[in-house]
């Protein structure tokens, strides 16, 4: 194993250049048809998430219903991509979403800190899979990463992927807010990519900063290089802090200009978000009617 890892040489990242590129992307003006198309894509890419200690059976049920019926007064709206919950709610969510095509994602591996043994993490992952999870969102061991034990991090991801098997897609959360630099984000991305992740994901949403555009760009570039090198397509999921439609469109622009059309589907790009959908719905209604509606016209779940 370790032999493979030492051969992963991460390209350096220049923060000023990344910020420049991001500001160029955010200057893109997305209007009219392009905006409507983009907003619908955003809805369809959402992993509608609830990860609270206070989660209840009813809350998860409501969330599943919302995921399937975002705003029934607006015709032809897509559903969200997935519902993301803790492992103990996977079975319930699976049942609620039956026949909808919406995936069930579960966080696992001692989420959010990742501070546990590999055995516990595998058991945690297995629990989610046994409940019927289609996707597992794992966290990397940031402590080990900072200690320079990249092999450990690599092996852990590879092991969890092994537990997931072919049919359960693995999203690897780097928790970029704890990584300290864009160079580290790039290194962690490369580790996660080579270790067999199906998606790489920015954040747990439990610490700040969560997802940012610069961090996402660095990760998209890592995905691009991995694709150039291997032909293997890996997805991207920024999560946390993306709560308005405009920002979500900036993210999609970043994807469009970095990776192109192949990634502009919920098979390869997701937003981890709890409150993004309603802002997107408000924007869609605004495009349709020409005026903003009160927040109270949109269900809060």
């Amino acid at each position, binding site marked *: 194993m370790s032999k493979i890892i030492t051969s992963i040489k991460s*390209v*350096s990242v220049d923060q000023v250049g990344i910020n420049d590129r991001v500001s160029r992307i955010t200057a893109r*003006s*997305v209007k009219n048809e392009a905006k409507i198309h983009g907003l619908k894509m955003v809805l369809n890419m959402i992993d509608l998430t609830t990860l609270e200690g206070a989660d209840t059976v009813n809350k998860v049920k409501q969330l599943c219903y919302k995921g399937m019926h975002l705003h029934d007064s607006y015709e032809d709206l897509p559903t969200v991509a997935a519902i993301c919950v803790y492992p103990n709610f996977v079975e319930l969510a699976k049942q609620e979403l039956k026949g909808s095509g919406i995936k069930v994602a579960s966080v696992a591996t001692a989420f959010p800190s990742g501070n546990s043994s590999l055995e516990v993490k595998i058991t945690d992952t297995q629990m989610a899979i046994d409940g019927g999870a289609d996707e597992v969102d794992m966290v990397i061991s940031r402590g080990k990463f900072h200690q320079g034990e990249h092999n450990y991090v690599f092996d852990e991801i590879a092991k969890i992927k092994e537990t997931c098997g072919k049919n359960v897609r693995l999203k690897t959360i780097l928790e970029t807010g704890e990584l300290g630099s864009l160079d580290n984000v790039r290194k962690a991305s490369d580790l996660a990519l080579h270790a067999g992740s199906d998606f790489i994901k920015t954040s747990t949403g439990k610490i700040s900063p969560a997802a940012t555009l610069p961090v996402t760009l660095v990760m998209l570039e890592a995905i691009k290089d991995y694709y150039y090198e291997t*032909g293997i397509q890996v997805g991207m999921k920024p999560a946390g802090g993306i709560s308005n439609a405009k920002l979500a469109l900036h993210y999609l622009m970043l994807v469009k200009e970095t*990776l192109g059309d192949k990634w502009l589907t919920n098979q390869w790009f997701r937003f981890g978000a709890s409150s993004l959908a309603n802002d997107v719905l408000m924007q869609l209604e605004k495009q349709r009617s020409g005026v903003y509606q009160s927040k109270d016209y949109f269900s809060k779940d």
Partner: protein
Amino acid sequence: MSKKETKLDLKSNWELAPSLESTSHVNLKKEYQLFIGGKWIKPSSGKYFDTNNPATEEKLASIAHGNTKDVDLAVKAARKAYDTNWSKLSGKERGKYIFRIARIMQERAKELAVVETLDGGKPIRESRDIDIPLAANHFFYYAGWADKLEYAFPNRNPKSLGVAGQITPWNFPLLMAAWKIAPALACGNTVVLKPAETTSLTTLLLAEICEQAGLPEGVVNIVTGAGDTGAEIVNHEGIDKIAFTGSTGVGKIIQNAIAGTDKKVTLELGGKAANIVFEDAPLDQAVEGIVNGIFFNQGHVCCAGSRLLVQESVYDIVLRKLKDRMESLIVGNPLDKNTDIGAINSKSQLDTINHYIKLGKEEGAEIYQPEGKLDKKGYWCKPTLFTGVAQSNRIVQEEIFGPVLAIQTFRTIEEAITKANNTPYGLSAGVWTDKGSKIFNMTNQLRAGIVWANTFNKFDPTSPFGGYKESGFGREGGLHGLEAYLKFPS
């Protein structure tokens, strides 16, 4: 094992809808006169020429063509203003006027940006975010120096020169006028300026702004016209200083013309800059820098990074990334906020660029241009790469002044430096590496007035700009920029 498909699909189905900058706040006159002695006066020849929108080939306005008499009038007005007023004002008072100009430029920024784009063809994104704010910043910056010249040059007794004759190019019309007028005024000189004939409009708006700011009459005079008008300024006896930005060819003519006179001169001429990418560079940001280096302002940039030198070991990946990045560059209507590459400034410049593209092909270089259609009306050129070129290729040696990049490889630092310096020009260069010591090693050895490290085409009023060798001499911007408009009598 068969090679897996790894092509990206960057010509997106998700097309951006048009997002045009409004032009409703712009009221261009049908005819523009000369601005001499604080008044708008008709050219003595009665002649006017058209200024066109290069994106539509439509006429925007008629511009007065100044001749000997007009230039003489302007120089006399400038001399009178210098003798009776401007040179006698305290630095603090001069500074107030310059600050006022800067503020009005900010107030009218949107209008200036739209006119710059209409007249010159550059994308509104650039005129809005770069040209106009930077031009205003130059006035702000030099306004601050006006009353501090003694501190800028302690114990050297700085004195103004008199009347400065200034000739600006068409690639950054307002910005170049700002680079020239702001330090001249701050140092206590008066000015006769001729903008390039294809892009006079924003300079004329700047004259309006000078009026609005209550600048004493004759301190800034604008004489529009073509090369002959410029020659009149250069040759006029009443001029104490020439500041020229333009081609090396014209720069040589100017130097010939003023030989034997005591006119001071600064020349900011052409370039053929090397943008050098090492294997340890942040490659994705380097690619962005390559794009900004050569496709910024359609490549109409004297300091453009028109020669790319890539270390052999990363050549394939850099080229691939660059080609992919070029797929998402939008060429089209300069007024669209999403346009990356606007219109070529004029028919004649487009002909020059096409001549070089043809030449490159004939020389056996391999050409790459992204797919996509160009409008039939207007002057357009796709972003273009040439690979497989040698130092002896003309497209490597000569300044094209368009979106055309010649790409070479190198193995060692020595080879990179040799290739980079092997040009008659010496305006700028770029170095891309993660290693600080390598950057300093390179900057010491590159014969270029500006060396950017891990960035390209970044400008700031506080930073001096100017060239070595045939790229000219003298510096504009920063403290150095003051020196060009001062004398130091012992």
